[in-house]
């Protein structure tokens, strides 16, 4: 049983997805999917434990050996990302039932859970596999289900947002496929390990460069790196609330993982950061993303959209971390991967609560909400200060590591601009706090009207996690340090 964990991680939700269609009762389906994701979470926790204890796990699908068959390869990096994805996916799912019942029709609810599980398994598959073509397959599984999930949104603009994402996402996936094809052409293998071993011998042929460029642009489209982020704000704003929480906490993280996997493990840091002016490109675009998206966020009237732009900005931070090209920078990125999942998960789940009660996520709906929904707003404040990077929240830890990484590699200007990004976060978070606590509500005498517990508990679980991991940092620090050290093993 334990030996099959890597494949169970992916197969479990994949097989469970169609089973939802058989059960047909919304409440039961929710329970079923929740149990499945709980199982996936257990598997990923066990995997991480196993990797920490005994190193890399290599699993050969169907007993075929690596270069011919498909290999699932779990090292500390993807064990970490698997845990993030499955943990956040589970917590969000716990809140899904209440929110979905309010936002979707009965018939669509079953569909929602099916798609959710498909998307879930797709994301897990991308991370678990050690085969680049498999990456593409799972990317398509997760993307197609995401398009449909977004299109479920009540607002008719959700359709348009889903279509936008469909076009951009397909371009991205196609680019990735072209790049993988080129790689196969020159190396004759799809296995990541083999690719990493064979690529240095080939050197910098035009084909390899083209492959690299295609793959890079394809991934950057998926992770919404500025200026390829245009699909994201609409998709986040108009999707059903829990879908937003789910993809915000997981999908971009997986894309960042892919970027790290391709640039650092497969092509190697030396190639990635030196052959193309990638270092400048990543730092430059990352910073631009941080600053522009944050400024745009300040002017958003729809709070879901505002946090969507904030996500684009946060992706910028992670990209800068990779671009620094040092183990410390990579560690900061990996930390932020985790912490950002926590804060955006908490924030978007809290927003789901607001939408549930108030029916809107416009800034005007937040007036006086501090009194009407004290717990929900409390979670938003915690998520917000974590986003800003105040000490004693998770956000501070990753900001601290990122800034020290920048200063350490004497990128002073970068450090200054990163800090400026935090200040912009203050501006947009505070607009919300001011509306909630210092504006009187439009209908003043409404009594306290909290979101239902089934939403509040998951929200607060994540909010408390933001505080917990801001104080007790042993686990994330140990894992990310191990991961960044292994990845940079060759380069250092």
């Amino acid at each position, binding site marked *: 049983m334990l030996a099959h964990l890597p494949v169970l991680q992916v197969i479990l939700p994949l097989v469970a997805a169609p089973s939802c269609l058989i059960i047909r009762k919304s409440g039961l389906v929710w329970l079923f999917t929740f149990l499945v994701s709980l199982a996936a979470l257990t598997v990923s926790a066990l995997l991480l434990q196993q990797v920490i204890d005994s190193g890399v796990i290599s699993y050969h699908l169907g007993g075929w050996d690596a270069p011919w068959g498909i290999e699932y390869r779990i090292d500390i990096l993807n064990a970490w990302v698997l845990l993030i994805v499955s943990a956040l996916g589970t917590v969000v799912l716990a809140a899904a039932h209440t929110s979905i019942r309010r936002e979707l029709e009965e018939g669509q609810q079953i569909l929602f859970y099916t798609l959710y599980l498909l998307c879930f398994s797709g994301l897990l598959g991308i991370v678990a596999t050690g085969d680049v073509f498999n990456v593409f397959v799972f990317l398509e599984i997760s993307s197609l289900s995401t398009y449909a999930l977004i299109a479920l949104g009540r607002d008719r603009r959700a359709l348009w947002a889903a279509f936008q994402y469909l076009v951009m996402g397909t371009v991205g996936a196609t680019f990735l496929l072209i790049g993988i094809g080129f790689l196969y052409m020159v190396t004759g293998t799809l296995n990541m390990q083999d690719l990493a071993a064979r690529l240095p011998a080939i050197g910098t042929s035009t084909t390899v460069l083209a492959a690299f460029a295609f793959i890079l642009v394809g991934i950057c489209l998926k992770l919404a790196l500025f200026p390829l982020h245009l699909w994201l704000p609409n998709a986040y704003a108009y999707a059903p609330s829990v879908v937003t929480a789910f993809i915000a906490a997981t999908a971009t993280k997986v894309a960042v993982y892919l970027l790290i996997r391709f640039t650092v493990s497969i092509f190697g840091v030396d190639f990635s950061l030196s052959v193309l002016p990638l270092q400048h490109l990543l730092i430059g675009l990352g910073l631009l993303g941080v600053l522009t998206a944050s400024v745009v966020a300040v002017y958003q009237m729809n709070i879901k959209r505002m946090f969507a732009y904030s996500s684009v900005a946060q992706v910028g931070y992670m990209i800068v971390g990779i671009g620094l090209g040092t183990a410390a920078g990579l560690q900061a990125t990996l930390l932020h991967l985790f912490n950002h999942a926590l804060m955006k998960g908490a924030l978007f789940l809290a927003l789901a609560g607001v939408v549930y009660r108030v029916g809107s996520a416009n800034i005007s709906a937040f007036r006086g909400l501090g009194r009407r929904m004290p717990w929900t707003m409390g979670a938003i404040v915690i998520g917000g200060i974590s986003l800003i990077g105040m000490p004693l929240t998770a956000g501070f830890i990753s900001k601290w590591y990122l800034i020290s990484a920048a*200063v350490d590699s004497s990128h002073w200007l970068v450090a*200054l601009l990163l800090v400026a990004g935090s200040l912009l976060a*203050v501006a947009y978070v505070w607009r919300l706090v*001011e509306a909630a606590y*210092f504006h009187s509500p439009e209908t003043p005498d409404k009594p306290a009207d909290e979101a239902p517990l089934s939403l509040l508990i998951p929200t607060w679980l994540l909010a408390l996690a933001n505080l917990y991991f801001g104080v007790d*940092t042993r686990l994330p620090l140990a894992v990310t340090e191990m991961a960044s050290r292994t990845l940079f093993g060759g380069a250092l």
Partner: protein
Amino acid sequence: MIGNESLLQLALLLPLVAVAGIRLLGRHENLREAVSLLAGTALFATVCSLYDPVFRGELVEIRWLELMPGLSLAFRAEPLGLLFSLIASFLWSVTTLYAIGYMRGHGEGNQTRFYSLFAVSIGAVMGIAFAENLFTLFVFYEVLTLSTYPLVTHAGTDKARAGGRVYLGILLGTSIGFFLLAIVATWLLAGTLSFTPGGVFDADTPRSLLSVLLALYVFGVGKAAVMPFHRWLPAAMVAPTPVSALLHAVAVVKAGVFVLLKVCLLIFGLDTLGSIPATEWLLYLAGISVLLASVVALRQQNLKARLAYSTVSQLGYITMGALLATSAGFSGSALHIVMHAFGKITLFFCAGAILVAAHKTEIHQLRGIGRQMPVTMVAFFIASLSIIGIPPTGGTWSKWYLMLGTLEAGQWLLMALLMGSSLLSIAYLLPIPLRAFFSGNGQDSGGPPVAIREAPWPSLLAIGVTTLGCMLLLFYPNAFYQLIKVAL
């Protein structure tokens, strides 16, 4: 007998206990305020009982938790911090007393929120005062900013919100933008953030780098209100007067200069500080801040605004004294924290008393008010003397040592600057009480005597206590002075 470590824990936790008590008793006004007063007194007693061990140089240290390797939340009782916490805890009880009169007399809403946030801010001040390292200090510095923000916007009007935005914008902006960066850089350069006598930097650290760092610290600690980052202080004057009095004359601004003092003494070390080229520039910047703020104060017609600019100017003195990098200058700065605290809090108390009793906020309305509020205006007069720095008040001492410091450092120009600013402070402070007594407007002088109508008695009592403090400090500055000697 409780151990010293437990006393330190108690000093840090008492304000939090007070918060819980205030929240629980929110409905019973008298009990709620009793909790505040009791906690204030207990806190002061706790801090007082730390005086002896610190004076003897015992190591009183506690460690809460380690966030990242080498970065922990830890506290240590040391002389400078003790000085600051003594002032803050003493004035907290006094201000609570004052606030009881003011808040009820003025009919303010949301009083439970007010008192509990007040306690949170004092807790943050204790954290800052006893911080063992820069990281802990930064954490509580931010807590102080965030917990005072709702106090500034207490009124909930558009004006209050606008003021709150400036307040938060500048304080968070400078602290995240410069202060945090300086801390990270210090961490990478020195490998430690602990406050260490003599400084943490190696002798061969490039001076240019240290120059940049020092500038980052001076600007990053926005609470010290060095120009051009002083705008938040006048903006914060929209707050209720007890907030302006305790937080924006004592706790918050003093936290700012206290941080600068600690950074100068225990991160850079006075010797290193004197050898950094940027020190000279920053000294003059502080000097300009002193002078300009005095000039601006002269032109303010609103009483609280004038007091705020006066605070900016006086904070400049403290910053300057620290940057002089001489022991006399440093002593002057540290003493001025005490003296200015007592003087300025009295002035704000008086301003609030005038608002509550006579509903007046502008200076030109105060002619002849001395007949209606004699006690208040006498207190105002004495406190003004302390700010200016002439006997019979404690302000004399700090000004004396600051002058001495400029002489020791051979900074004649700065000395002239200090003198000039003192003259200006005479011009912007003294006319207020003098006109209140001696220039009644024509019609009044022949009419029947004006009835005495002072502020509510708790407020008046508080004013009495701090005024008395101003005068006593002339005769008994020794307790503080010895403490500063230990620090040096």
